[in-house]
């Protein structure tokens, strides 16, 4: 079963269209999973944003099975409360071979969410960018509260 199929869990459903024009039914709830102190979520993607490796913390926090994550686009975690501009900035930055850091609200497989402080760096091998390494760590709650308001305003603006 593809990981990008419609979500069928209980919650508020909406049709969501991704940057590449694909669309699926996503479900969201107000259930937050807090980031476990002392842990890191680590994953790698190819240049197209397809997940190639991930650690156990990623599996646990996202609620997906590892088999669902490997081979899926990283946008499987995209929460509708995140503004498109934030991801545009991320991709513009990492495509230029630079490091990007920011606070991200991610969508879980069960419709819940979790906040992270994410850093994405280009994966350079033999002088070529062959993908990206993404490391997510426990965010400051003050920053999360601040960014949640900023993102809500940006999303409202984008939906006008």
């Amino acid at each position, binding site marked *: 079963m593809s990981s990008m199929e419609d979500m069928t869990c209980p919650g508020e459903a909406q049709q969501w269209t991704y940057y590449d024009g694909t669309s699926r039914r996503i479900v969201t709830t107000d259930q937050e999973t807090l980031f*476990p102190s*002392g842990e890191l979520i680590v994953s790698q993607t190819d240049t197209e944003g397809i997940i190639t490796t991930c650690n156990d913390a990623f599996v646990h926090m996202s609620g997906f099975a590892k088999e669902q994550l490997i081979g899926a686009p990283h946008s499987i975690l995209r929460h509708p409360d995140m503004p498109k501009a934030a991801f545009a900035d991320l991709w513009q930055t990492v495509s230029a071979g630079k490091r990007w850091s920011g606070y991200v609200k991610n969508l879980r497989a069960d419709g819940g969410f979790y906040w992270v402080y994410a850093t994405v760096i280009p994966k350079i*091998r033999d002088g070529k960018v062959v993908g990206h390494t993404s490391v997510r760590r426990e965010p400051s709650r003050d920053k999360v509260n601040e960014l949640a308001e900023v993102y809500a305003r940006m999303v409202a603006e984008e939906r006008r």
Partner: protein
Amino acid sequence: MEFAISPDVNVKNATDWFILNTKVQRITGLQFHPTAYNDFADLHAAFEEGRADLIYANAADTAYLVRDKGFIPVASAKSVAKEAVIVVSDKSPYHQITDLKAPVTAAATSSPDIERLCRIMLEPANIVYGDVELSIRPNPVLVAKALLQDQVQVGFFPEEAFDELSSMVRMQLRELVRSRIYVVKSSLLVSPRLADQVEMLWQGLDGLSKDPANAELLAGLGAPDGWERLGQEDVEFMIDLMDALSQEGEAPRHRA
């Protein structure tokens, strides 16, 4: 050939590293001169002056040696990862990381990997690089002493060093958070001059791991389960991870 022993390996077992040096000589048929460095400035000078051909390097030095100097990964301790613990005095008013407020005073031993892990574990309290006034102490017991004498608010410890403190000292300390990252490791590296010795060296180390007579030695080296092969991609991944964990304002301390 020079065998450089980093200041942040288990220095109380320096003799074990000298024994390993002898075994490496037998494996390769080459003469190695072992040097146990007491501080990173001297070690980094050795890197620059080409006085390190074999080294068991922390992750920060591994990044520099592999990416900038062309060192080749050979092995790492099997099933052993570096984890860090942030600790306060038992009398401290801080019971969780988010109780802390910037600026913070901290004590630590000289171990860049542990320092980096601890600094990121302070981030949930909005404590960034410039908010930590860090003083380096010669050993973990003196980090504990700094906490007990109320000289600093928090202590940064390698997990195994904290766990090995005496029960009397530990009773007077309280753990705030412990990392569970699993991938930060020290790496046994060789210089490009030894590129054609990598496989022979690995085979020899693997043989050491399999011989029960070496169990005590391996435990002393911090590799109780023996060695595991460390490939180029394994080490590149760890370097990427450590790079992603670096904080704004952090000095590139691994360069001499």
